[in-house]
């Protein structure tokens, strides 16, 4: 039963990204060409509201639904992994026109061929796991 709320949130997330055209290949192209404010507006307003929410969580030591103090684990600072990893991700994002969430939402929208990049992404993640000790972090 405890998983139902995640299913419901996932459904809403899928609908939001569909209706805001975040799952549109065209919108990603347009964003990287700086020809529309739309995607910047979506991400920017999400971050703005997110900043306020997380600030309140920290300020009030908000407890989670299960009564535990919410801790947001910080990421360790280094440059290579975030920069190189980010560049590789960005190349794929602009090429496929979809980041991980939209890949799955598009699959549900009826673009069955999206199962292929999903499998390729799993293979990519597996490959990272195998070579991670050999690349700079």
């Amino acid at each position, binding site marked *: 039963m405890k998983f139902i*709320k*995640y299913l*419901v*949130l*996932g*459904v809403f*997330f*899928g*609908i*939001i990204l*569909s*209706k*805001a055209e975040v799952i*549109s290949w*065209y919108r990603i192209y347009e*964003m990287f060409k700086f020809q*529309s404010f739309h995607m910047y*507006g979506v991400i920017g*307003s*999400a*971050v703005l*509201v*997110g*900043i306020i929410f*997380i600030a309140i*969580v920290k300020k009030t030591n908000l407890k989670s639904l299960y009564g*535990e103090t919410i801790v947001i684990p910080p*990421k*360790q600072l*280094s440059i290579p*992994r*975030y920069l190189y*990893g*980010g*560049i*590789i*991700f*960005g*190349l794929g*994002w*602009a*090429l*496929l026109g979809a980041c*991980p969430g939209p*890949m799955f939402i*598009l699959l*549900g*929208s*009826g*673009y*069955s061929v999206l199962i292929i990049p999903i*499998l*390729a*992404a*799993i*293979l*990519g*993640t*597996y490959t*990272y796991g195998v070579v991670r000790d050999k690349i700079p972090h």
Partner: protein
Amino acid sequence: MDKVVEILSQPWPWYVAGPLIALIMGLLIYFGNTFGISSNFRTVCAMTIGGKQCSFFDFNWKDQIWNLVFLGGTVIGGFLASEYLSSDLPILLNEKTIKELVELKVYSPEDGINPTSLFNWETLFTLKGFLIFIVGGFLVGFGTRYAGGCTSGHAISGLSNLQLPSLIAVVGFFIGGLVMTYFLLPFILSL
């Protein structure tokens, strides 16, 4: 009810979608979790191939089932939106974008919000399709784990938490995305 469906079927403006995405993130945090889609790729590796071959996949993936359920929900959400909330209006892109896309031969007005000329099984079996679907997907999967997050984990969650690593990752997303869009994509689409 019909009126509600009609309103919801219009494209949603950014100032509605963005705060709603933040609300999803906020609820996941309130439930004691984090918001990050790409972790699921790692979970699938741990579930299938397992940690014996590779220590990176040696973790208790059962703690991540909630995220797989969330992911399953997104697929259902995509189905519901396309089935019951779709709009017949063409996507309102910048005119300059449309002109470029016509030149790149990926745009047609009856397409809906995605290029049907690209997103189909016939394209997969061409060099262009191999690059877009297989190489593109691989780069996303490799890059996101290398960077420790994707758009949801870094651009939304990480920046909301004012994390410098996430800002570096997002700068990386844009360097890669711009190089692809300006220099490589026109060539790949012409194949």
